[in-house]
């Protein structure tokens, strides 16, 4: 108790120094929070942008098959697996669009418009016209529409691999955020695709979305297990895009590294300043020891100082970091469309604050040990 009182008084009696140390700590914490929060939100936004309108776990026919039969029961079997949020059947087949001398190779995608909504949000992503409502209508992508100068109501001839020609009518134009998709996919009713390719009631894939893109590999295993003895294979987004994940992981690692080094430099700074305060206060410690303060109590004075500085610095730093990050996001979103959200991870803020407090208490360990060695006779003898 006496140690705490003395620690508090030491800090109060040199306000400027106390404030400077706290501010040094606060700036470090603020930078750490800013970097950490920015990267987390950037990755989340990036991930949402890339995988938000994509199938996470996809069921395909086994290697020597071309169709999935009896698909309603398979869809039902997948639906209840943990982590699966949407299931949608699809009929995909390549085709050619010939217009004048130009020919585009495209993919006809037959979707159940209701169930596919949960994955592709077509209603929202169709910016002109509407999604197909009958078997002769088709939804085309933004880039394809520009390339072929198509608009809502136009007719479109497609040639299937078996050399049959079908005429479809453009009901709307979509934008799924990726030029490759927009150029290549034309979207029709599932029944329309089934009749174009004479598939009867069969389909070619089952698409899903999951709660967590990082565990799609294990979700895929569960899906495969649920469909047990059917002749199918199951792909997942994670295994299909290894580069994407290693990029995310190394980005994350570099962010942790920056955060760690920022904190480390702050801790070293505090440790060195506190070491100086032991020298500054050696007279006082000597007097206190002559009056009978124990070595452990003397050490506690410096630990408490570290703790108090840590708490003050952490509170200031968390606030500063939050303001900095929020301001940055506001400035960013006012200058255009931003994929980074300004949402805060409270746990991350609290953890950063806690780490700051612990780190500065640790930084005071060295001066605390140094103060033990201080012999009162040196002070008494030399005045």
């Amino acid at each position, binding site marked *: *108790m*006496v140690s705490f*009182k003395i620690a508090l*008084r*030491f800090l*109060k*009696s040199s306000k400027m120094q106390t404030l400077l140390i706290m501010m040094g700590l606060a700036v470090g914490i603020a930078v750490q929070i800013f970097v950490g929060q920015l990267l987390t939100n950037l990755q989340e936004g990036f991930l949402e942008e890339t995988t938000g309108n994509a199938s996470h776990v996809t069921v395909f026919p086994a290697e020597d098959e071309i169709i999935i039969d009896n698909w309603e029961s398979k869809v039902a079997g997948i639906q209840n697996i943990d982590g699966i949020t949407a299931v949608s059947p699809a009929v995909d087949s390549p085709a050619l669009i010939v217009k004048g001398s130009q020919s585009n190779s495209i993919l006809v995608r037959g979707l159940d418009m209701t169930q596919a909504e949960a994955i592709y949000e077509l209603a929202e992503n169709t910016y002109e016209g509407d999604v197909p409502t009958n078997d002769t209508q088709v939804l085309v992508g933004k880039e394809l529409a520009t390339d072929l100068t198509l608009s809502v109501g136009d007719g479109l001839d497609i040639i299937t691999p078996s050399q049959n020609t079908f005429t479809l009518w453009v009901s709307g134009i979509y934008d799924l955020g990726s030029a490759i998709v927009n150029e290549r996919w034309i979207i029709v009713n599932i029944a329309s695709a089934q009749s174009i390719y004479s598939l009867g009631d069969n389909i070619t894939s089952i698409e899903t979305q999951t709660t967590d893109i990082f565990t799609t590999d294990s979700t895929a295993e569960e899906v495969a297990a649920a469909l047990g003895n059917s002749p199918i294979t199951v792909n997942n987004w994670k295994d299909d895009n290894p580069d994407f994940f290693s990029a995310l992981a190394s980005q994350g690692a570099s962010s942790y590294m920056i955060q760690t080094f920022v904190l480390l430099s702050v801790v070293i700074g505090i440790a060195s300043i506190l070491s100086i305060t032991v020298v500054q206060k050696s*007279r*006082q410690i000597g*007097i*206190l*020891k*002559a*009056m*009978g*303060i*124990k*070595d*452990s*109590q003397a050490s506690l004075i410096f630990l408490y100082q570290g703790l108090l500085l840590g708490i003050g610095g952490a509170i200031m730093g968390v606030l500063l970091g939050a303001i900095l990050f929020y301001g940055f996001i506001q400035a960013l979103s006012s200058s255009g469309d931003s994929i980074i959200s300004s949402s805060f991870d409270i746990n991350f803020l609290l953890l950063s604050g806690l780490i700051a407090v612990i780190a500065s208490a640790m930084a005071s360990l060295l001066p605390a040990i140094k103060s033990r060695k201080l012999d*009162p*006779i040196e*002070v*008494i*003898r030399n*005045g």
Partner: protein
Amino acid sequence: MADMINMQKVSKIYSGAIETQVLFDIDLKVEEGSFNSLVGQSGSGKSTLLNIIGTLDKATKGTVEIAGQRTDTMTKDQLASLRNQSLGFIFQFHHLLPEFTARENVLMPYLIQHGKTTSEIEKRADELLGLVGLDAVKNNLSTEMSGGQQQRAAIARALINNPKLILADEPTGNLDTDTTDSVYRLLRQINEEYGTTFLIVTHDRKIAERTDRIIMVEDGRIELDLIT
């Protein structure tokens, strides 16, 4: 009467670049409740002797007993407790804590022992501050007091835990004669009222002559031991 201090064959050797022996086989007994002075030339070893008695310094050889307890074999924590509860120091340089007021400095030895102060001890601190004539400045930081006032605050601080033995190293070294006089009358008064044992280092012959016993040190040896 029992011995408050009992030193036998105490030597002190500083071993630096050159070894210097400062104290030579000192035997010294001081009775409980007595009022003693320690005199001698500058550099004769008075402060060294006092600091060994006060457990701030260690003897190179010999044994030291304070109130019947061997101090040369105690641990650092035991020594800290002994200093806190049984000893009071008044140093050559007053040594107050500059971050604290006079009153807080006086209460510090109590705070070290108990962790917090009570209204009783605060009353006692105020009484002691009154006794040394510091009523008017007791809430000043120690840096906002004159040298003599700081010295008197240090005296009040030495008394707060009711120590059995007070060790004073030239407590009036930088005070004028009037203040010196009042400080001595104060120490004498405490000695008579509480039976506190005093060992006072002084250069002032007149002061020494007013104590019960004069111990004179010369070149690290007790040359003269005079009961007045």
